């Protein structure tokens, strides 16, 4: 049977019962094993707790266990006969926005935990806003602790309504609401009999069935070149291939392609996948491409179809999440890593800082500090071949690296190029932050 993979992230604070939910998912899919549970029970007993603290399954670092908080993203693995799951468990505190961005960047689905007693909090809104900004295709609002509100429908509907009002200002493709109790197990892996008014599925069933195949962009062929293979032995004297992982699209033997940024036309004479020659390859496969002409191809170049090309520009507009302790400095040089290309860039203008709580744009903000988001214009030393992040999460994303410390300073999401006379805000951006006063 074909088993596929779903990458998801969870967001919520300890108080929302996130660790309990993850613990229950791991436990009920038999992904926590007996010795691991016993270790947690021993540690809980040492801390004077009567019951096993399932959060200790997740909080692995010494400092986390000492302080009872989650500092860093932890990755968990569970599987059912249908699907395997890679779960990025992200801490929920506002100062850990960067962790949520990290977890959401690779996720196809985000579970936002909401405490049914609290309703939709500022923190839930932040989590949802980050999921929207990072273009996570599927969002689940898990309304937890239903046992503490008597399994009544009203608190659940209140969360749904509050979220719908808020989400109209964001951009979601698919939002699902599930009432559950992680503590009691209602609607996590087994349907609850306590909430007959709920007709949807359990969380696990939703995770197993959510349709993710269509999230892969198979339309726009984008093959960023990672490396060149040139064997040095006589048997492969004339072999030369260009290897990359398809960011999107499908490539076939015989295709005529454009090599960017130069623009020369080449034809694909052969495709070698890791297990042998193939006639076609698709995202996210790694493939070695052989070409008909001895062209100069380097790491960071990109293959695309002549009639479906990405933007090629040195002037970049992007939403950034600042990650480093050292704040953004305009006119300072940063290294840019975008697909497999590396170059230098200089931030020239901070259009605004985005306040996630109210979705306000603060145009007076002088800089971005750690965990802050904002729109920036950059000038790159060499043209980047990119798509807007909204259309392509691979060719639309980049990181900035601090040249002095080598720290990863920011995560960036590219916006459509701004025509000199066009509107200042892209349509997507206007929708995202449209209602906030400037």
């Amino acid at each position: 049977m074909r088993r596929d993979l779903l990458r998801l992230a969870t967001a919520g604070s300890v108080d929302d019962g996130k660790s309990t939910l993850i613990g229950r998912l791991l436990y009920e899919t038999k992904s926590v094993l007996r010795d691991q549970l016993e270790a947690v029970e021993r540690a809980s007993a040492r801390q004077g707790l009567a019951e096993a603290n399932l959060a200790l399954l997740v909080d692995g670092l010494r400092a986390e266990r000492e302080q009872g908080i989650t500092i860093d993203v932890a990755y968990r693995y569970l599987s059912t006969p249908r699907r395997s799951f890679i779960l990025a468990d992200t801490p929920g505190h506002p100062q850990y926005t960067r962790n949520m961005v990290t977890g959401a960047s690779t996720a196809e689905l985000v579970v936002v935990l909401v405490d049914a007693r609290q309703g939709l909090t500022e923190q839930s809104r932040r989590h949802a806003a980050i999921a929207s900004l990072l273009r996570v295709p599927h969002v689940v609002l898990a309304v937890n602790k239903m046992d503490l509100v008597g399994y009544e429908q009203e608190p659940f509907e209140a969360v749904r309504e509050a979220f719908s009002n808020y989400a109209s200002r964001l951009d979601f493709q698919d939002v699902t609401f599930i009432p559950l109790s992680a503590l009691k197990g209602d609607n996590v892996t087994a349907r609850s009999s306590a909430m007959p008014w709920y007709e949807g599925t359990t969380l696990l069933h939703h995770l197993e069935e959510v349709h993710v195949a269509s999230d892969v962009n198979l339309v726009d062929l984008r093959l960023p070149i990672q490396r060149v293979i040139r064997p040095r032995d006589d048997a492969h004297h004339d072999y030369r291939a260009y290897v990359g992982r398809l960011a999107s699209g499908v490539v076939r033997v015989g295709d005529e392609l454009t090599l960017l940024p130069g623009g020369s036309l080449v034809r694909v004479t052969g495709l070698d996948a890791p297990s042998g020659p193939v006639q076609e390859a698709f995202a996210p496969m790694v493939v070695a491409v052989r070409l008909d002409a001895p062209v100069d191809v380097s790491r960071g170049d990109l293959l695309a179809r002549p009639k479906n090309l990405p933007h090629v520009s040195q002037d970049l507009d992007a939403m950034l999440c600042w990650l480093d302790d050292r704040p953004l400095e305009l006119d300072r040089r940063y290294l840019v890593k975008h697909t497999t290309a590396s170059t230098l860039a200089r931030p020239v203008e901070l259009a605004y800082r985005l306040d996630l709580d109210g979705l306000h744009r603060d145009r007076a903000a002088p800089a971005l500090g750690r965990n802050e988001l904002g729109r920036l214009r950059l000038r790159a030393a060499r043209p980047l071949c990119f798509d807007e992040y909204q259309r392509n999460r691979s060719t639309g994303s980049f990181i900035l690296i601090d040249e002095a410390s080598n720290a990863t300073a920011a995560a960036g999401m590219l916006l459509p190029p701004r025509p000199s006379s066009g509107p200042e805000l892209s349509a997507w951006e206007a929708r995202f932050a449209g209602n906030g006063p400037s």
Partner: protein
Amino acid sequence: MPSASPQYHLTQLEELEAEAIFVLGEVVAECERPVLLFSGGKDSAVLLHLAAKAFRPAGLPFPILHVDTGRNFAEVLEFRDRTAARVGGRLLVASVQEALDAGRLVERAGGDRNRLQIPVLLEAIASHGFDAAIGGARRDEEKARAKERFFSFRDEFGQWDPKAQRPEVWSLYNARVHPGEHLRAFPLSNWTELDVWRYVATEGIELPSLYFAHRRAVVERDGWLFAVGPHLAPRPGETVVERRVRYRTVGDATGTAAVISSATTPEAIVEELLASDVSERGATRADDRVGETSMEDRKREGYF
């Protein structure tokens, strides 16, 4: 915008394979002098197999390094030499025994050599000038490893600081280091033990014979079965018995326990794991029981 077709959908193992090969490619493209750490265990055998696939028809673009505690199982050393020769890799061996003989290290009380591998590994990385060491560690193995990055920074003392890790967004890996610092790269980060065995079965990857059920003389110690051999003698009061066993992990002969098993093929091992309720390190590694954070502590010092 996107179109869907089941024909253009990777299976879980295909996706993990693509991710691992992409990471191997990034290491080679971004680092000056990478090295692949090879213990002869199943994870490093899978890693080496992936590396061979990633760069063919060219050969491996990096050497292979084994840190030999001097207490390895003979089958594993034989497998190591044979496998390195088969893939045409240049094999380097960093020896704990040599470091002990030269007086650069002293044996620890109780004779456990697990931690002694750390200075030997760091010395090998420094003396060869490696700026990236590729390892087969997986996040599902252990809770400190669950926090690891694909590209994990080590300072000039080889230390890991779990609280100051570089955020890793999308698959944009930051491979920048200053001279004297290095990276550890973990292409199998997202693989589980089951994934490794399913891949071994699918790809027909050869492993040391002790991974499969065989009869062996063992003693029971602290609830674990240890093989009696040149590196481990029965203590007074212990009875040597013969059992049908296999190993779930391969480490020092003194610190790695065997499990009762009748599984003789990768497929049978997959079945056995699906029915098991004990993790591989919990079943076999004495070194992890020292404390709740013993892996974190070793990793901070520069462990694999």
